[in-house]
């Protein structure tokens, strides 16, 4: 097992190697650790590398494989975004506030992966508390795009996306509140899936905007996304917004013909501001669907254009409430140099949070405050109803909606840090799916100037099967998923 092979090694192939005893989990894990020691200095995708734990879990996985009791994810090294709780292992949210925090329990996703014998290789860097689109808001360091070190990997799951693309893990889990899985997947040339809200438990995911947050896989291809979703999806009594349903085998949708499926192309997603190369690549991708027998027609989602305003009212409002818990009393950073309670609280939050987190707490507090609640928060919730209704109506006519994932390819580090509004515009195509609660996936669909382009597919609530079916059909008809960065 050579470290150089890791960037192209999928979960499915790795599982085959382990099952046929061509490689052990220990060999695979060591190869990934070698790869990390070689490239991590330039990528910086990890807040923590859990080497000792990985070696121990790999050893346990080998024992399990030997008994013939292995699962597809047994023994395969993965990274978790550092906002998912891991018992006794630092979970920082890339914030000074939680720099020393050691969770006393595992998130449900962590537990499900561990139960199947997964190997945790480390915790992935993110924009502080998952607020951002470039991973530059990490309080520790920015992550670099494996395709071009001067470019951002996207965010907020920039660490997980970069780690998968650079071969520092076989797959990763990210969280997506307004595009935080799909946008970095797009920038890093990999597959990123945000499931229907409620399909994956949020228990143990450090809360940002609870009505929008959803965990999902970042993988090298669509098959891997289906495999990982099989394990993490399902009802959880610990999350009251988790949907009770029987989890299907998501891989069953792969390889089914897409002939006759109806795809809508919303004209609002091809407006000015979309990079010409991105528009062209997506148009070529649309013709691939047509060639495979899908029927494609233009449609309109006019209320979608208000998604950004809705998102930047609802998400900060929920965040301002969720982040009220950081008071420097029970856990986390605490300003030591003052004795009075209120002063200490002010100081703890002033020093513990970074600029973007403070901006969003302020924005949310403002939108919820007396005199502004109706004009901002309530108004946004009503427009949310309209956006959701618009998608419901679209899915009466179409099986899927196809758009670019992002208006541009990955931008340069520092290019948008001084202007929050410019940074926010990155997620205009991904936010509507969170607002409506529907599943969406980004798959690689081109390369412009050496940087990957992402294609977004959205389907109706709980229609992950159709989503994966279409994404897989597209992937198999093209070769973009076989491109890897040269590092």
């Amino acid at each position, binding site marked *: 097992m050579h470290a150089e092979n890791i960037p192209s090694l999928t979960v499915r192939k790795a599982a085959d190697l382990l099952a046929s005893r061509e490689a052990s989990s220990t060999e695979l894990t060591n190869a990934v650790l070698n790869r990390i020691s070689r490239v991590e200095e330039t990528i910086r995708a990890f807040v923590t590398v859990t080497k000792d734990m990985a070696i121990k879990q790999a050893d346990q996985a080998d024992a399990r494989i030997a008994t013939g009791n292995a699962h597809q994810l047994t023994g395969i090294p993965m990274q978790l975004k550092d906002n998912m709780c891991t018992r006794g292992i630092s979970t920082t949210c890339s914030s000074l506030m939680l720099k*020393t*925090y*050691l969770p*006393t*329990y595992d998130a449900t996703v962590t537990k499900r992966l561990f139960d199947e014998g997964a190997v945790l290789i480390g915790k992935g860097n993110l924009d502080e508390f998952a607020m951002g689109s470039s991973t530059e808001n990490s309080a520790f360091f920015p992550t670099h795009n494996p395709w071009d070190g001067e470019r951002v990997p996207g965010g907020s799951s920039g660490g997980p996306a970069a780690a998968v693309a650079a071969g520092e893990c076989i797959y990763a889990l990210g969280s997506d509140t307004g595009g935080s899985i799909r946008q970095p997947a797009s920038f890093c040339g990999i597959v990123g899936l945000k499931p229907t*809200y*409620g399909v994956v438990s949020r228990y143990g995911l450090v809360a940002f905007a*609870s*009505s929008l947050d959803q965990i999902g896989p970042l993988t090298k291809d669509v098959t891997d996304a289906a495999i990982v979703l099989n394990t993490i999806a399902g009802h959880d*009594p610990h999350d*009251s*917004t988790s949907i009770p349903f029987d989890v299907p085998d998501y891989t069953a949708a792969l390889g089914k013909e897409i002939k006759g499926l109806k795809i809508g192309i919303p004209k609002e997603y091809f407006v000015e501001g979309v990079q010409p190369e991105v528009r062209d690549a997506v148009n070529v991708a649309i013709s691939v669907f047509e060639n495979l027998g899908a029927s494609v027609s233009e449609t309109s989602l006019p*209320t979608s*254009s*208000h998604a*950004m305003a*809705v998102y*930047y009212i609802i998400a900060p409002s929920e965040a*301002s409430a969720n982040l*009220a818990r950081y*008071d420097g*009393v*029970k*856990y*986390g*950073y*605490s300003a030591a140099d003052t*004795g*009075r*309670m*209120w002063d200490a*609280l*002010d*100081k703890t*939050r*002033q020093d513990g*949070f970074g600029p973007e987190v*403070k*901006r969003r*707490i*302020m*924005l949310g*507090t*403002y939108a919820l405050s007396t005199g502004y609640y109706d004009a*901002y928060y*309530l*108004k*946004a*919730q*009503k*427009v949310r*109803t*309209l956006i*959701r209704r618009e998608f419901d109506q679209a899915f009466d006519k179409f099986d899927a909606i196809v758009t670019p994932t992002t208006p541009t390819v990955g931008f340069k580090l520092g290019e948008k840090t001084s202007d*929050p*509004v410019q940074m*926010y515009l990155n997620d205009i195509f991904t936010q509507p799916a969170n*607002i409506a609660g*529907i599943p969406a996936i980004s798959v690689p669909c081109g390369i412009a100037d050496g940087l990957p382009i992402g294609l977004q597919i959205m389907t109706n*609530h709980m229609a992950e099967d159709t989503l994966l079916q279409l994404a897989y059909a597209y992937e198999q008809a093209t070769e973009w998923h076989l491109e890897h960065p040269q590092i």
Partner: protein
Amino acid sequence: MRLTSDEVKHVAHLARLGMSDDETELMRDQLSNILEQFKSLEQVDTKNIEPTGHSANLQSVMRDDTVEPSRPKKEILKNAPQVEDEFIRIRAVLE
């Protein structure tokens, strides 16, 4: 709409967020620019439209109230900034 410095200070107080004068001024500019983006919502007719809180269509989710062991005290106390004996120490609330 432009916020005043006093408005920013008031919101910072509500959020219990200490803020220097420089931070207040930067925040005033940035928040004002962001609020400007929200103006587009005024064009949307939301008469008789119910608000959506979240998209999962679930209501009053209950589970059995079963007795389970609490998480280990030692691990919880390990995270606390100030500990005294087996307790989390807090700052004086009354003076």
